[in-house]
């Protein structure tokens, strides 16, 4: 009986300790929930899904982050990188998307600037990347996309189907390259890829307005 009482006291003490420890992190937890939501939006954006409404709501709800002096460096960096990812996948041909792109620029002006990717941008401004470096960058970007693909772990055909949908919906030529790369890889492994090749050709024709020669 004494052992049980001792254990219950210890249980209460540990729960109180964890509760207090988490309370001190509450502000960071709220920041994380905002970052986590933005991360979901960025992932959907990379998949070619419509994100304008959710991004607009995110800006409206998190406007105070711009004036929050207690944000940690890695939180600022995470938000900046996610906004950068979203902006790079935007197709600002319509007014609504253009407005959201301008809001991202506003956040950057307020100090929410990407840290990790800034290095790459500066390099690009001072020296043009060689074709080899461009290719390596593309492969890296494709690997990152697959790493965070919701279908990760699924059969490659499922992933290919998703990539083809993105290739069709988005302007970024990376999706076309990635689809072609997966198709070729599957052909090398004996899969019948005819229908996928047909889809990819149709997408290419659509994007070039039917002027593509090959």
């Amino acid at each position, binding site marked *: 009986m004494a052992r049980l009482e001792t254990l219950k006291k210890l249980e209460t003490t540990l729960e109180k300790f964890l509760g207090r420890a988490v309370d001190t992190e509450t502000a960071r937890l709220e920041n994380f929930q905002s970052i986590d939501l933005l*991360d979901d939006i960025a992932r959907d954006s990379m998949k070619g899904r419509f994100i304008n409404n959710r991004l607009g709501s995110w800006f409206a709800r998190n406007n105070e982050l711009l004036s929050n002096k207690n944000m940690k460096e890695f939180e600022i960096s995470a938000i900046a990188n996610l906004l950068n990812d979203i902006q790079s996948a935007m197709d600002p041909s319509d007014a609504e998307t253009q407005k959201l792109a301008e809001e991202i620029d506003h956040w950057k002006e307020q100090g929410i600037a990407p840290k990790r990717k800034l290095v790459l941008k500066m390099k690009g401004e001072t020296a043009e990347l060689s074709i080899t470096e461009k290719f390596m960058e593309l492969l890296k970007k494709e690997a990152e996309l697959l790493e965070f693909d919701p279908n990760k772990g699924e059969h490659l055909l499922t992933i290919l189907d998703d990539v083809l949908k993105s290739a069709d919906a988005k302007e970024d030529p990376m999706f076309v390259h990635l689809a072609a790369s997966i198709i070729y890889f599957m052909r090398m492994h004996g899969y019948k890829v005819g229908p996928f090749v047909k889809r990819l050709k149709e997408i290419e024709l659509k994007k070039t307005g039917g002027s593509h020669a090959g």
Partner: protein
Amino acid sequence: MLADAEKAYFKALEALKNRDYAAASGFFKTAENQFTDRLEFRILQATTALLLAVKEEIFEIENSRIEIEEISSYGKETEFRR
């Protein structure tokens, strides 16, 4: 995109806030490679593991008490199941 470990760490804090200690323990495990050099992380992870062990011990003691009480209720106590 956020790294899986970063997400896992904050999800662990979220789980602790909701008193879901088993879930928190799982998220800490996912995050440990990236955060193991941070003292606050190690303390929270170890405390959560200790709390889960304490809860398990309490559960076992309370369950064995119920069994003993059930045996006694049928008359003379002839055996203990633990």
